[in-house]
């Protein structure tokens, strides 16, 4: 008996229970007179499953290429930065100062550190460069992105009805698109 026939003949019985869905007779001979054939079949099926390779998805997401010309922060600074931003009882002042410094020096956090300083990246994404912004956008929780009453697409007539975080993003986007407009 091979793995395919085990799947077809045995698996339904093991899942539903042999009391409801009895195993087909004379599948295997018990290894000893005292052993239970059903348990031995369970053992065989289990081992066959262990040798099955994990299934590979048909397709994977193609990751976007983000053009980020900022320099990655030096390796020697990575640990102190993480420690500073994840320390207990830390106020938001050092985080803001750090974000401003990153912006002024055209630096960006190391991509591998983004999950570790996630809260900092979300709050200061616009000062940390396109990679960090992409991270912050991708990591937005569903509840934050939209509620039932939120307008779908924001424009000048609907932006006031959106949540505060969406309003902030909208205004920042508008400022970036048209920096000369003083109305905002």
């Amino acid at each position: 008996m091979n793995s395919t026939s085990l799947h077809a003949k045995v698996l339904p019985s093991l899942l539903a229970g042999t009391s409801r869905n009895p195993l087909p007779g004379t599948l295997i001979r018990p290894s000893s007179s005292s052993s239970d054939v059903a348990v031995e079949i369970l053992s065989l099926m289990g081992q066959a499953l262990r040798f099955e390779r994990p299934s590979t998805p048909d397709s994977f997401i193609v990751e976007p290429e983000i053009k980020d010309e900022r320099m990655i922060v030096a390796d020697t600074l990575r640990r102190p930065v993480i420690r500073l931003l994840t320390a207990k009882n830390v106020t938001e002042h050092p985080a803001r100062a750090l974000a401003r410094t990153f912006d002024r020096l055209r630096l960006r956090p190391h991509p591998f550190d983004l999950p570790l300083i996630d809260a900092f990246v979300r709050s200061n994404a616009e000062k940390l460069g396109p990679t960090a912004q992409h991270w912050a956008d991708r990591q937005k929780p569903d509840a934050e992105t939209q509620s039932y009453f939120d307008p779908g697409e924001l424009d000048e007539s609907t932006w006031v009805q959106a949540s505060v975080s969406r309003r902030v993003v909208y205004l920042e986007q508008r400022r970036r698109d048209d920096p000369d407009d003083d109305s905002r």
Partner: protein
Amino acid sequence: MSLTLERIEALAPDQASLGAARKLLKPSSWPTLAEGEGLVWGECQGSGATPYRVVVSEADAGYKCTCPSRKFPCKHALALMWMRADRSFAFATATVPDWVKDWLSRRRGKSTPAAKTEDETGPKPRPSIRLTEIPEARADADRKAEQRAAAARERNRLERETAVLAGLDDLDTWLADQVQQGMANFVAQAAQRCRAIAQRLVDAKASGLAGRLDALPTRLFTLPGPAPPLAAIRELAQVHLISQAYRRSLELPELLATDARQAVGWSVTRDTLLNDSEALRVAAKWRIFAVLSEAQPDRLRKVETWLWRQSSADGKPHCAVLIDFVPISTGTATGGYLVGDQIDAELSFYRSTIPLRAQVTTLKRGAEQSSEPLTLPNEVLSASYAEYERALAQLPWLGTIPLTFRSASVRRHGEQLYLHDDQGPLSLPLHTSQTSHALPLAGVGRVDGIGLWNGYEFTLAWAETRLGRWLH
């Protein structure tokens, strides 16, 4: 203020701690003893699999030790202070290592001596170093007493064998019941059913099987979608195989029979292993590539320190794991080593068909942080996975095993991350706990590295990428 013997007496929690510390006053127990910047630190080989790291600040006698002792300071910290105060031990001048810097940066400030409470019966006697000098009574072993003890041990062993076999009979009946009722049903009630049989197996002194079954519901719970019933079949199948192998151990190769006994619950103590002249020993440079910890139902935390052999030793295992168990209540979540540390040590491997678990026999050189890459074999993930399958054929209840890979990539399918072999049709799902942490690896291109495969999920531990090193 320098360390003095009087100060150490004042710090010692009790006389027993001082007595225990005295036994550690020998350089052979301390492969590393160093000083610098007002600190002394060292590594002490204790009863755990990994040496304990101890650091003491000379200025204020502040201390930190990685041992799980609930006494503060522990015997290791006291011994280090004592050796420093004694001035007859050589401390190498060295730059302060990262783990000491880490402790310094987390200190709240200089310690103040805790107010000692005295109960109604009056003050407790102060611990004294002088008292530890009283030579221990070394009564010659009474041969008859030793024979009686050996006979008692043999009697206990036979009683335990009988109890284990009776427990395995119960287990067979229980397994037959589960098969009758079906795995879909089993998954829904796994917690109660596994708890009941685990308790019976504990009574039958088959603690290994009991632990395996106790942990099963949690494992099933963490698996997504339709996986739990199939996983239940796999796990119960292994339990049955272990039970059968234990009963038929005389028919099996010696190492497989040993594996079966260990899986049932016959443990091998550290001393037994170190005294076993036939145990596999490998002296080499080892790199720590992963430190994992997991809380167990028995209120112990299992800390696994995974090592990769950096220097050549033909035909010897490339990988080893040091396993420590510490009480959850101590709050210790890591072993003595950090990922990236390198040690020069001889390891003794527990006997097994697939030797992985080991103990440090001798530590020639203590842990040092190293920036060198791992010396990984030139194998793609599929080749490494094929080795796993060969190992699985040899040891059917094989647990977690390291897999190395070259030129793989991390890819996303929905929220799930996969380690994909770009040269073969194999994708291993990454552990769900790594979904966020490993996400930046998606899109960085080819990665080389190592991780741990438990048959369900791959825990990525170490990856060399074009953006530098990524660590778990």
